């Protein structure tokens, strides 16, 4: 039987702490960038301008059908050849942002699709200009509809951030691997890493429900 030995790992606690912190930083940046971009992209996708719609649709289709790792490799290995040097962290943030934006566009788009047409008509009947009806009537309701799905997207970004380790971002997965090659306690290490991500996902779920709170539970006006 395999002997678990967690004590050997104690001296490496600072590595895990800094790795976990970087995981959260990386994810937070990608989420903060991709959520507003996703809203803009969704507005483009439902817009009447063919160019705007085409650009947003093309972006979503391209990103959703290419693995995140390939996007990370392109940013990290291929862009420098075109004179755009990105360090691993920047490439990681950018890759995750691109990926998350595509999925967030789809989330917001389905939110817009769920708004009854009567809401648009009512806003116009009140004499609101398009910007006002979107800003004051439609988008607040869209937010309520998409809040739970956005929570899932936050979790997806945190899980995806583990792939940034592959281009050398020193986040949790990277630290786990490097401590593994020093101690050879791979079993304990990767079990702990898995638990870290599972715990993160659960915590985000609970926090998200707390934050969304009343907004998500309140009934929608038909």
């Amino acid at each position, binding site marked *: 039987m*395999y002997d678990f030995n967690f004590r050997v790992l104690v001296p490496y606690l600072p590595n895990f702490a800094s790795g976990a912190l970087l995981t959260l930083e990386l994810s937070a940046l990608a989420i903060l960038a991709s959520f507003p971009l996703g809203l803009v992209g969704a507005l483009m996708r439902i817009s009447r301008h063919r160019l705007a719609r085409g650009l947003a649709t093309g972006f979503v*289709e*391209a990103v*959703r*059908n*290419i*693995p*995140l*790792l*390939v*996007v990370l*490799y*392109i940013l990290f*290995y*291929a862009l420098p*050849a*075109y004179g755009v040097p990105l360090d691993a962290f920047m490439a990681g943030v950018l890759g995750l942002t691109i990926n998350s934006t595509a999925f967030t566009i789809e989330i917001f788009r389905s939110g817009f699709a769920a708004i009854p047409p009567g809401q648009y008509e009512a806003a116009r009947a009140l004499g609101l200009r398009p910007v006002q009806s979107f800003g004051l009537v439609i988008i607040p309701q869209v937010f309520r509809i998409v809040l739970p799905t956005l929570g899932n997207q936050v*979790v997806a970004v945190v*899980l*995806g*951030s*583990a*792939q940034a*380790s*592959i281009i050398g971002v020193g986040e949790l*997965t990277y630290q*786990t*691997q490097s401590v*593994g090659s020093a101690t*050879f*306690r*791979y*079993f304990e*290490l*990767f*079990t702990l*890493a*898995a638990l870290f*991500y*599972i715990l*993160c*996902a*659960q915590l985000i779920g609970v926090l998200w429900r707390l934050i969304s709170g009343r907004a998500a539970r309140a009934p929608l006006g038909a």
Partner: protein
Amino acid sequence: MIASGHFGSYLLLLLEGAGVTLELSLGALILGSIAGVVLGAMRGSRRRVVKALAAIYIEGLRSTPFVILLFLMYYAVPVALNLDIPPYPAAITALSLHCSAYMAEVVRSGIEAVPKGQWEAAAALGLGYPRIMGLVILPQALRVMIPPTIGVYVSTLKESSLASIIGFVELLGQGMAIRESNAGHSTADVLLAVAFGYFIICFTLSRLGLRLERHTTRDLRQGAGAGGTVRG
């Protein structure tokens, strides 16, 4: 840039890689579906312990990054069991596990889509749970499950690109090998070609899934009028 003379042979290597990618993820999808049916049925069970076990498995796997799962299979399990696991078995096991959690959810929602009357009718015929599930519910649920299964296949296929980091040569692995053999001079071309390869495969599959989904929802809506049955 790639020297034009090599272009043909590189293309051949990438096509071969794409074949390996399709095969690896299809293998994982099949294994994952088998486990997914069992797990999905467990989640629908009335026994609390069975239900909870399935829920923990599904939730745990769905919130573990695939990279970690892959490293667990490739680095951790060999250390723990004192055996050697080559890249291919490690990759297909990790992918199947990952896939099974998602397939379980597909199976569960497929089962939920079958009208309650079917359960009652089957029970009235005197069938027990395994038979109701196997003979009545699952065959009807299968129809609804096909489009989301294609979705799982696409996401499994994308995740399979991570197998390249443990040294398994599929589409991305093939691309990175070509890049290395050119001392990094062809990086952009090769990576874009690889990205294009994944795009073509995934886009085609996604479209197919969408078309099938439209069919199914239309049939379901028509079926709902006639007593809510799904014709298989």
